[in-house]
């Protein structure tokens, strides 16, 4: 048998899997978005009807605003911000302590997500059985319905605590890969911790910053499981984000065609953000320039 034939034998199983579980669903979703399929499962093509409906859907502006607030606040405060801060601090202390604090931040990752969600429900339970209200009761303060007062804050914090660990791992690994001599040289030259961080560490982990920012934007845009468990989008759409709205449309209201159209728009939104990041981080500069040897 020729080399090429052999290669195809090895490739085929993977290609079949990719086509079955990736390509076909994507195409189906796009096709579906041009139908008004409902619980009857009929392929009823209505052209751009769904997209026109989205444009006039009175909930959409609220959902879009929620999505942007939720995504970028979580991203800035936790998934990138907090992750970066923890990495910078834990790599500036003796390694034993650094590892300890990082392990602490990893714990939420090791908790099953439903358990993790329910944990937050318990923390902010409106009765005195909830952790926060229990503590308040000990100090003689009345219980508060936190999930009603600040639902957005709660889902951001809940997502942030678990989301920060990935960035933390990547940033820490990247910082540790920076040659020690750079830091020694800087210390001998009298640079402060802040100057070292700003002029040496951050520029040298730029690529990882870009990666985590882009990756986490996409995952915050598309994931909704903790919101589903903690607030289910409520009270009254106050935490309804795009992905959750899509889920509600498709699986609570059985408007599969409308849901598909919503998810197509979400994909486009994500792509736009990814491209913006590449521009912002001057991605071209990250590509290796040719080495020139001149005398």
């Amino acid at each position, binding site marked *: 048998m020729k080399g090429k034939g052999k290669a195809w034998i090895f490739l085929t199983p993977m290609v079949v899997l990719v086509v079955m579980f990736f390509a076909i669903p994507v195409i189906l979703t796009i096709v579906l978005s041009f139908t008004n399929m409902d619980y009857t499962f009929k392929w009823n093509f209505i052209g751009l009807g769904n997209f026109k409906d989205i444009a006039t859907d009175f909930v959409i502006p609220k959902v879009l605003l929620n999505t942007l607030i939720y995504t970028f606040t979580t991203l800035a405060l936790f998934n990138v911000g907090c992750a970066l801060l923890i990495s910078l601090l834990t790599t500036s202390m003796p390694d034993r302590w650094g590892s300890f604090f990082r392990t602490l931040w990893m714990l939420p990752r090791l908790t099953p997500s439903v358990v993790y969600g329910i944990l937050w429900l318990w923390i902010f339970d409106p009765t005195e059985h909830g952790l926060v209200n229990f503590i308040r009761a000990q100090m003689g303060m009345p219980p508060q319905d936190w999930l009603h007062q600040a639902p957005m804050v709660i889902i951001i914090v809940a997502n942030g605590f678990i989301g920060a660990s990935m960035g933390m791992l990547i940033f820490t690994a990247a910082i540790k890969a920076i040659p020690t*001599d750079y830091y020694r040289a800087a*210390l001998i030259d009298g640079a402060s911790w802040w100057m070292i961080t700003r002029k040496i560490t951050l520029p040298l982990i730029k690529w990882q910053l870009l990666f985590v920012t882009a990756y986490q934007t996409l995952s915050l845009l598309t994931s909704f499981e903790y919101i589903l468990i903690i607030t289910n989008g409520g009270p009254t759409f106050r935490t309804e984000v795009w992905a959750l709205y899509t889920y509600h449309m498709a699986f609570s209201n059985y408007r599969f065609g409308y849901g598909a159209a919503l998810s197509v728009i979400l994909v486009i939104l994500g792509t736009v953000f990814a491209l913006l990041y590449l521009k912002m981080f001057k991605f071209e500069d990250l590509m290796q320039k040719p080495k020139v040897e001149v005398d």
Partner: protein
Amino acid sequence: MPSIRVVNLKKYFGKVKAVDGISFEVKDGEFVALLGPSGCGKTTTLLMLAGIYKPTGGEIWFDDQLMNDVPPKFREIGMVFQNYALYPHMTIYENIAFPLRAKKMEEGEIKKRVYDVAKKLMIEKLLDRKPGQISGGQQQRVALARALIKQPKVLLFDEPLSNLDAKLRMMMRAEIKKLQEDLGITSVYVTHDQAEAMTMASRIVVFNKGKIMQYGTPDEVYRNPKNLFVATFIGNPAMNLIRNLSYIRKDGRAFLISKSLHLELPEDVAKKIEEAKKQEGLVLGFRPEDAEIVHEESGLGFWAYVYVLEPLGRDLIINLKVSETDELIKVFAESGVVVDKDEKVFVKLRPEGIHVFDSETEELIV
């Protein structure tokens, strides 16, 4: 410029005794080399001088100030690292300006100083490039410029030339030496290359396994090695050693003997061996240039046979063996000398070139 005094300095990493109680001093403006094989604690010593590592024990003095607890930035040190440690994302200009930026110097002054030092090191055309876009030799110069720009009182070099090719290394060797002489900055230069240490330094600290083997001028460590380590580490080719010798006296004459060798000793050498009270396990050492190949027995020496010849152009290295099981002996000869392979020849020694070591303590006896 300060003098440096190191007293019983120690650095342990857990069980590893990287530096184990060393003492030496560097005079004001002097150029001293720390010489030793890889892993012997040279870098660790340098990093303690720089204030990056805290000593496990001992003292570091700059003039009469105890430096142990002084942070690096107050030590007024310039350091050149083995891999240069240039920041890859900054231009050469920014790299050189970095120490001045850390001092929050005013921009005009920074610019002036960067151009001055760049000119001195002939890198002014490279200032807007990045380190990845210049050659190794140029990176070396940039690293030197960054170390010099803050006008340090002490310069530390950690094997700065080991990544360059042989020709460039020879050139930079002379240049660094000249620069140091001109500026008169007290300098400690770490290297594993004995030729570098010999040619550049006014004194050499020979290091092994975290301890100092000998401290002296290049001539002292070459002519009068205090132990087997220094004898074999310094010099290229290394000092010849003939091991497992016994000392005997017969009819009033003194000899070093083994199964295959019989060497009569001058009386002064014999006296010293007798004073040391060692009879067995002696090692004879002599440098390749302290012997001569002749065809008949004459004076001090022993018989050996020619093993292989290494012509070097001007000189010739004759490799000999006393017997099949002995180590090779190398002797310099002028290229005109005619010997044949396997020929039996007489290795005639210069009396003042003879060294005898104790193989147990490895210390010099004569």
